[in-house]
């Protein structure tokens, strides 16, 4: 069958087919922009359809409502969802808690990642550096869920942490199912995402700069403050974008290790939009809030020049 086709095209239709092909492809040769446009159509179209369209739908839904009885979406434009969110004390509390914990996690990750990254980039030998890289990346090879569950077991009342504390004669730390537990687990989970960009930024600082600083009589601390830190700042900001946005959007860790007062924005989105009542417009309005928070954060980050380093 296939072979027969091949014979037919090469013998009977040969020259005319070649001519047709030339006519078809000639414009791409003459107009290179057309070729580029066609090549980009796939990925750009995909991006628009899957990514931008979903975000646009989210924003549009946020201004609609539902019929309470049938839970069908009612297409009348209003601000009721947003009014409901901001007029409710508990919901404002949820937003505040989410942003606050995301900020705390980011600060903690930065405080740990900077000395760690500095050691990796400037002190450690090649072998130690490889080992440290593996150690940083190793947790990412196992499932996020498994690691959070492990922390749940560690922090439980009769868990590993309290057991160890008791063994060395200290009072137990009752931080299971609390905001402290969430802060701890988030810091652990997102730390690699801070270490890697910080390491990259520190590694890029030429050694000559530090020598020059010393030659000019600066102490170690002054060099750190005036030379290393400003040059590493874009890396810290880039890392903070990861840790901040990942914490802001999470809802699994609050479900597993959070306590009675640990609801995050994501949990409200989940319970109002998917689990309970199917109120998609309200969930969309709530989901728009972290987007706005992130937009503000990114605008601030841009001013520090974080994106020039990416």
């Amino acid at each position, binding site marked *: 069958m296939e072979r027969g086709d091949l014979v037919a095209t090469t013998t009977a239709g040969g020259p005319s087919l070649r001519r047709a092909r030339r006519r078809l492809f000639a414009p791409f040769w003459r107009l290179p922009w057309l070729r580029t446009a066609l090549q980009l159509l796939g990925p750009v179209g995909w991006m628009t359809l899957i990514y931008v369209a979903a975000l646009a739908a989210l924003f549009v839904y946020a201004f609609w409502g539902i*019929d*309470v*009885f*049938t*839970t069908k979406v009612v297409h009348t434009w209003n601000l009721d969802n947003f009014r409901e969110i901001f007029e*409710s*004390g*508990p*919901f404002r*509390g*949820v937003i505040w808690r989410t942003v606050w914990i995301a900020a705390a996690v980011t600060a903690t990750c930065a405080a740990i990642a900077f000395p760690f990254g500095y050691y990796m980039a400037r002190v450690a030998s090649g072998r130690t550096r490889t080992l440290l890289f593996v150690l940083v990346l190793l947790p990412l090879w196992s499932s996020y869920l498994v690691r959070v569950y492990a922390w*749940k077991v560690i922090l*439980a*009342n*009769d*868990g590993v942490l309290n057991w160890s504390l008791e063994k060395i004669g200290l009072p137990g730390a*009752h931080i*299971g*199912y609390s905001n402290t537990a969430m802060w701890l687990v988030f810091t652990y989970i997102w730390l690699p995402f801070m270490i890697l960009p910080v390491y990259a930024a520190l590694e890029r600082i030429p050694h000559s700069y530090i020598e020059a600083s010393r030659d000019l009589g600066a102490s170690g601390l002054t060099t750190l403050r005036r030379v290393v830190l400003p040059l590493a700042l874009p890396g810290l900001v880039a890392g903070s974008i990861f840790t901040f946005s990942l914490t802001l959007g999470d809802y699994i860790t609050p*479900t597993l290790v*959070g*306590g*009675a*007062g640990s*609801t995050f924005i994501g949990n*409200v989105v989940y*319970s*109002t939009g*998917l*689990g*309970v*009542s*199917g109120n998609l417009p309200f969930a969309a309005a709530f989901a728009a809030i972290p987007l706005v928070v992130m937009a503000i954060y990114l605008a601030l980050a841009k001013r520090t020049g974080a994106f020039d380093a990416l």
Partner: protein
Amino acid sequence: MRRAKLRHLALALVAVALAAPAAGTTKATANEGSLSMIAWEGYLDAKWVKPFERQSGCKVKAKYAGSSDEMVTLMRSGGGGLYDMVSASGDASLRLIYGGDVQAVDVSKVPGWKQFFRGFQSPPNNTVKGKHYGISLQWGPNTLMFNTKKVAPAPRSWSALYDPKFKGKITVPNNPIQIADAALYLSKTRPSLGIKDPYELTKPQFDAAIALLKKQRPLVKKYWGLSSDEVSLFKNGDAVLGASWPYTTGQLQAAKVPVKEVIPREGATGWLDTWMLSAKTKHPNCAYAWYRYISSPKVQALQAVTWGETPVNKLACPLMDKLAKGSCAAYHANAPESFYASIKFWKTPLADCGNGQKKCMDYSQWIKAWNEVIS
């Protein structure tokens, strides 16, 4: 709003009218070969599904749901008709009935139904105006569970769940219907509120229940979602007192955790699950085959013992004891009818207070208030 409601009611009536003759004519025809069902995790256990598939020739496709709200959403997804049956609990069933998502069932075709305890033949959460929208399946009370080593003397009242003495050691389900438990407690402790039915609450009664729950929030260690969450809370000593199900108590006792459950003196709420039939099902014969099978004493006993539930079929009791000694009494499957009457079974809260007055708080308001309590 009002118009939408009327239109929906009309749609539901049309659906019922269309479905009724259809159900009548399909008796003689063969089974359709498959049945897709939304169920609580474990409700379609191979132990009883496999024999059914062999007997009936209907292949069961299971879709497990994690909450009543998810069940309602799934039943309505794709315009309805994606699933044939759903094992709806009492807090979902009325929503499905009034939403026109399920159709009336002819109980005369289900022999097991006549063997049911009277209270479960036509319970108000699946029977409306004499029409049966499904066949009751199993039920259980919502009990008060406590760690016998940490809580002494044994609590006799729901007040234990609101007692600051147990701050940070209490766990309650993360479910809007939990408001009814607070209302039940208030109906006995604050008679001046005049709460008669914990699912039909006027604004002041509702506000009192919410205020009580907000006061309880700081005492709660965790609002549990799955019964396995509660098991791990009690196992690890994070909680010593909580609202629970007999199944959870059984799991913990099997794991040698010193727990006991009581039905406190204020009484208890309870849940009743019903197999409901989609208004748009294409497999009615398989569905009726399932109804006949699942309501028979043997399968009732098997499911009850497997999941620590109480069967609705009276004849299941001796068969339960055969499967696991003492299980019939442990799960109250031999209790007198008056015992069932004392349980306030879950039902979807509606604006209609049962007396035609639309002054009560409906379920959407329950959800909203509950979200604010736990946030």
